[in-house]
């Protein structure tokens, strides 16, 4: 039996109604997308016979039509045939607003999905889509059975018995599920690969905390695989001495970063942080540079993250071929307090008697916010120490994560309102294609009162060159040119100090028993994406 431990317990197994990673991962043993997103970000066919590309004609030249050919002979675990109709149904289910699918954004922009014949699905986009794999690849596009869910689309979605016991095409099927506690799976004897999977039973237990989960994997070996074991480096190292297990990690696209506010968070009344206002000193590139150069990201990575992340000065850190190699040599990426102090001196910010720099009666004082999280508070301390050595007054603020990341237009403490000078959190591209991610800095994306702070450019930064680059990325099809544009966009954001990247975070950061084989860490899909291949040596 394979024993997997998640310290957040799965509560639902229909991934389209999932409440988080735990549910996505737990459903992935049962439900599959047409193709997995491989560890390098390239799709690997699962239900599809091959991955559609421009070269094989699966993706049309105008980037509007994607034709998926399905593998013949695939059966659902109840013995019925899997066909193109199931894919079409899954699209309709996700796209129905009343279903309130949590992954509905992955079907955004789709015009139609049509079953041309039982083994061919044609996806048509309203506009040319540079990412043909937005729908169909990775766990957000898990295909559900039409027969099981057709009566439960829209508002009735919550009543579906299949939410707790979906019929799937994956290697295992659910034999018992206690929501919020444990899922027990058994082999799906209809699975297309007759030799797989290798475990008679799988148990996915949920609940508890990360530290004791690490203990169960590394010290006692009670569990074969433990999800997200990010605990303090010292504690982790000590637990790993147990010798029963090892870490499973890969560099992901998620980057812990500092965001600079270009608007004035102290503007009076409802002008606060509105893009029409100007920040008293962050509009000066040299000041921003000085702030960037006083950040000791290396200490942060070594002392606080360990195996869970590495220092980076890029905002795009994966897939590997998209990562810029130019930033290492940039002056803004070097930790250099002397040079930073000189920049501020030259810019006319002189230290007063209290040691705080000021210019024209404006004190260089910043409020720096992030979420309540022990690790983040330690990061704040490191950054604060650096900035104080520049003669900057730093006030730290931490907000409950539920509030910080909420979309509540009435709450001034959200990351979108950005009523402080600097804020810190992690973000990254949700798919290997970085177009949407880089679009978050477009001037059309500026978050402000008129759009209830819903857009993604929290910095209130606008730059015509950048806008042009990203718009070009939307239509460019040549992979080499796409890469060049992405690197240029990354370099511009970093050199202009719109954002100060800190840590390239690892994902997964899980642990496995040393005897467990076949596991391949993958930042682009569920970490249980290839569970069919897992084995355990005795």
């Amino acid at each position, binding site marked *: 039996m394979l024993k997997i431990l998640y310290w957040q317990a799965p509560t639902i197994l229909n991934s389209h109604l999932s*409440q988080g990673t735990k549910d996505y991962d737990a459903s992935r043993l049962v439900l599959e997308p047409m193709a997995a997103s491989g560890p390098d970000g390239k799709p690997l066919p699962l239900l599809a016979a091959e991955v559609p590309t421009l070269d094989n004609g699966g993706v049309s030249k105008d980037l509007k039509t994607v034709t998926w050919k399905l593998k013949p002979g695939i059966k659902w675990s109840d013995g019925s045939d899997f066909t193109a109709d199931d894919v079409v149904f899954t699209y309709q289910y996700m796209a129905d607003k009343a279903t*309130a699918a949590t992954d509905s*954004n992955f079907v955004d922009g789709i015009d139609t999905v049509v079953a041309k014949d039982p083994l061919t699905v044609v996806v048509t986009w309203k506009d040319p889509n540079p990412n043909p794999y937005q729908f169909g690849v990775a766990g957000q596009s898990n295909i559900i059975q039409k027969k099981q869910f057709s009566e439960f689309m829209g508002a009735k*979605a919550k009543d579906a018995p299949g939410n707790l016991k979906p019929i799937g095409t994956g290697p295992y099927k659910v034999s018992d599920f206690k*929501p919020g506690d444990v899922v027990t799976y058994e082999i799906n004897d209809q699975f297309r690969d007759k030799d797989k999977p290798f475990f008679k039973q799988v148990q996915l237990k949920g*609940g508890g*905390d990360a530290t*004791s989960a690490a203990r169960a994997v590394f010290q006692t070996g*009670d569990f074969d695989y433990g999800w997200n074991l990010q605990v303090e480096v010292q504690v982790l190292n000590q637990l790993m001495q147990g010798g029963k297990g090892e870490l499973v990690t890969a560099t992901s696209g998620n980057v812990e970063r500092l965001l600079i506010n270009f608007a004035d968070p102290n503007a009076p009344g409802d002008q606060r942080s509105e893009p029409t206002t100007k920040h008293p000193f962050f509009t000066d590139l040299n000041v921003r540079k000085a702030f960037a150069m006083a950040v000791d990201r290396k200490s942060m990575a070594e002392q606080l993250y360990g195996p869970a992340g590495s220092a980076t000065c890029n905002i795009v850190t994966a897939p590997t071929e998209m990562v810029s190699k130019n930033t290492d040599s940039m002056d803004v990426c070097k930790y250099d307090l002397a040079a930073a102090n000189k920049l501020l001196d030259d810019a006319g910010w002189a230290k007063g008697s209290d040691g705080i720099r000021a210019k024209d009666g404006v004190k260089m004082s910043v409020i720096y916010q992030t979420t309540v999280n022990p690790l983040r508070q330690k990061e704040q301390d490191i950054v604060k120490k650096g900035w104080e050595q520049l003669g900057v007054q730093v006030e730290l603020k931490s907000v409950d994560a539920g509030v910080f990341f909420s*979309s509540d237009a009435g709450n001034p403490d959200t990351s979108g309102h950005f009523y402080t000078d600097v804020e810190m959190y992690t973000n990254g591209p949700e798919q290997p294609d970085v177009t949407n991610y880089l679009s978050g800095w477009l001037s059309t994306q500026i978050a402000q009162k008129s759009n209830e702070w819903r857009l993604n450019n929290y910095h209130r930064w606008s730059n015509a060159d950048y806008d042009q680059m990203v718009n070009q990325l939307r239509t460019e099809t040549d992979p080499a040119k796409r890469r060049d544009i992405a690197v240029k966009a990354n370099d511009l954001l970093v050199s202009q100090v719109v954002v100060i990247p800190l840590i390239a975070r690892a994902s997964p950061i899980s642990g496995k028993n040393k005897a467990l084989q076949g596991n391949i860490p993958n930042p682009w899909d569920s970490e249980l994406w290839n569970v069919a291949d897992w084995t355990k040596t005795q």
Partner: protein
Amino acid sequence: MGRFIARRLILAVPTLLMISFVLFAILALAPGDPLSQFAANPAVPPEVRENIKRSLGLDQPWPIRYVKWVMAMLQGDWGFSFGSRIPVWDLLKLRLPNTLAVVGVAYLVSLIIALPIGIISALRQYSLMDHISTTLAFIGFSLPTFFTGLMMIVIFSVKLGWFPFIYDSTLKVSDLETLGQQLKQSIMPIAVLALFQTATVVRYTRASVLENLPLDYVRTARAKGLAQATVIGRHVVRNSLIPVVTLIALTAPTIFSGAVITEQIFRVPGIGALLINSIQNSDTPVVMAIAFTFSVLVVLFNLVADVVYGVLDPRIRYD
């Protein structure tokens, strides 16, 4: 007596309504929403979250949601969990057996141990046995469960490897072997909870018996020539139990609400673990159901305690 109970029950209705209103208001006004988990996950954009909120009915103002909740509750509908999309009652049904098996058993165990120890250490005040039990009681009383729990895990699971520290709720007790496994996996959480509870009850019982021993009625009983066992059993213990009954009645509802910390440490999927996870995920219907049921039980057990006083002490009459 019947009228007394009826009056108390009627009085309980406004009390419970008030409690439910306060509970609901606190939950509604607390920061965070059921979708804040999504927010930390960049894959779910705000429009999607707004849409989900609407589908859960969370776009309505909370007073309206409260009225709807009360109406549904009166018809026996506890709502459905935002997280699992199943009726709250089904979720509770899954959890209750685990809580009873651990928290309930621990409660019974602690009573069985604590009452005799408390009585004996009062009778033999300042004896060696009294000193030992008092010391142990203070230790049990002052050590928080998260500490004793972790200590036990480190000693018995990690170092000695005797007991598993992750509770397996899929285990079905069908024969001696599985019964042994069930005992092995529940012994640590039960011990942790029982230690604390025993300590409390021992202290109460001891103090109460000590208070009664020098009283006149005890001397009278002895003067009548009654045997020691009769004096203690029929008179002293019966009178001393009144404060203990209060304590038991007031803590008994916690058997239902589970032990949040202990359940979390040992991953016992009980009501306590459900409660804390639901609070973290702002799964309001589940939190409301648990908290409200708990308040109903507190009110009920208070009534039970009052009735038991009457049985224990003939001087107390409610008519």
